[in-house]
């Protein structure tokens, strides 16, 4: 059992509880337990593009420092890595980690603010998305070996969104031909449905005051997947999940007829396949209920 220092991010405690709880449950099944940093703070959300705004870089660097301290309380074999689930947190933390490692002036300025708290960052951390741990440390073969309920009948279209693949510094996979979600879905016994819109922007924060932009993006993403035979989507980002899930419900009311596609976090699919209790999925928080589809395919049993 390897224990990892895990950084949740605010969404995992609010809108995406099912993402977090299933991730922790499957991490234990795969002997790579995610252990939450006890006193984590905001990742800094959207990374600032102004190069001299150091205030906005304090939060992500503090996360790295606190995670490093947390690792000292874990095991000897715990790597100097902070593991994230949210694509946005992953992206922001990776970019800032890279920035301060390459620009010592910046690091010094940030560290000056962290000094009094005894939280100086010593450039000794790496940021990893849980998908990277699954691919590089655990391996898909190993995951496949642990499957107890193969997800037969699920035709999944992987949706990456922007943050997992952009910018280069934060990418976890090939920017044009990513494969990590595809391999994962296959290892769980489900069918992969390729879609050309796997990284078309979901509309992001336009959801706040311009939701018609999101509507148009979501329609493209979902229709492309449906045309190719998908009956569900898999995502890794709580904002993508919210936009695609919630706006399909709105669109269904506006344009009746087409059945919406349920949206899963990749850890929820893993939880179903590895026999983790169904309630950890928090399907009640979904706007498009995945349960009818799972029932139809005989997958809702889990391990009773």
């Amino acid at each position, binding site marked *: 059992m390897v224990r990892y220092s895990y950084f949740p991010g605010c969404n995992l405690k609010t809108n995406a509880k099912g993402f977090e709880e299933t991730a922790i449950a499957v991490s234990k099944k795969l002997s790579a337990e995610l252990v939450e940093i006890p006193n984590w*703070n905001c990742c800094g959300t959207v990374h600032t593009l102004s190069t001299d705004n150091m*205030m906005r870089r304090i939060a992500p660097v*503090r996360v790295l420092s606190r995670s490093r301290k947390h690792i000292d309380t874990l095991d000897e074999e715990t790597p100097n890595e902070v593991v994230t689930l949210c694509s946005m947190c992953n992206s922001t933390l990776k970019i800032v980690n890279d920035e301060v490692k390459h620009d010592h002036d910046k690091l010094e300025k940030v560290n000056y603010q*962290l000094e009094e708290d005894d939280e100086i960052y010593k450039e000794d951390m790496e940021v990893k998305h849980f998908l990277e741990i699954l691919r590089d440390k655990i391996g898909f073969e190993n995951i496949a070996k642990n499957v107890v309920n193969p997800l037969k009948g699920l035709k999944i279209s992987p949706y990456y969104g922007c943050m997992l693949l952009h910018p280069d510094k934060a990418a976890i996979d090939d920017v044009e031909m990513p494969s990590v979600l595809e391999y994962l879905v296959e290892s769980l016994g489900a069918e992969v449905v390729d879609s050309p819109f796997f990284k078309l922007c979901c509309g992001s924060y336009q959801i706040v005051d311009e939701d018609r932009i999101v509507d148009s993006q979501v329609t493209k993403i979902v229709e492309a997947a449906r045309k190719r035979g998908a009956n569900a989507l898999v995502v890794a980002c709580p904002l993508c999940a919210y936009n695609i899930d919630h706006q399909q419900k709105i669109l269904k009311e506006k344009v009746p007829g087409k059945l919406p596609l349920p949206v899963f976090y990749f850890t929820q699919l893993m939880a179903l396949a590895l026999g983790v209790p169904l309630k950890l999925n928090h399907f009640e928080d979904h706007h498009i209920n995945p349960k009818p589809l799972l029932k139809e395919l005989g997958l809702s049993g889990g391990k009773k």
Partner: protein
Amino acid sequence: MSKTQIKEKEENETPMVKVYIMGSSHEVPASLTIMKAIEYAGFKIKRGAGCRAGFCGACATVYRKAGDYRIYAALACQTQVEDGMVLTQLPFVPAPKAKYDINKLSPTGNTILQFYPEVARCLSCNACSKVCPQDIHVMDYVQYSLQGQIKKAAEESFDCVQCGLCTIRCPAEIPQYHVATLVRRLHGKYEMKSPDTLEARVEEIEAGFYEEGFNELMKLSKDELRHKYFHERDFIDQKKA
């Protein structure tokens, strides 16, 4: 000044220090707290003094020390003066305080953001924790509130005396101590088990159990009340009973 005079001074008087109160210098005994020093210097504190025992948070004070660039903050009633201190009182902190009906809320991060949206502006700079005279991890509880971890936020903020120093220092303009009040109310109302003894006592009060005794007291004259207060009240007897 002759030598003998100096010697007399050393023997008979407590050591003095020089402090600056709102810019003017004053010699005060070194053993005093900041609050007593201000009064010793002749100021009357009308607002900015309360319990004088470190519990009420009314006496937030901001100061610098001689030859030190840092800004310090403390409770005036709990901190001893030092030579060269430059002092001022912070008798009141203007901070927006939300109005809500605690019975109509839910213990979530969204509730916090509804009433205190500026919480989302937190930069994690930790200036609030550094200034806190109670040594509370203020930034951590602000983060827990944002994350919807109401229980953790309530427990972390429990020792707050609402002096308001965090709010004055915050670059994101968050009224931390009011956020803390909201999270503790949410935690108390929706997450904690209500103690049976308290419910029983409230029922007794509502049923009029103490009505008669209070009415009797209200009818007494000032002298009779004084007699009861000084001569009939006996805590030891009450314990035995």
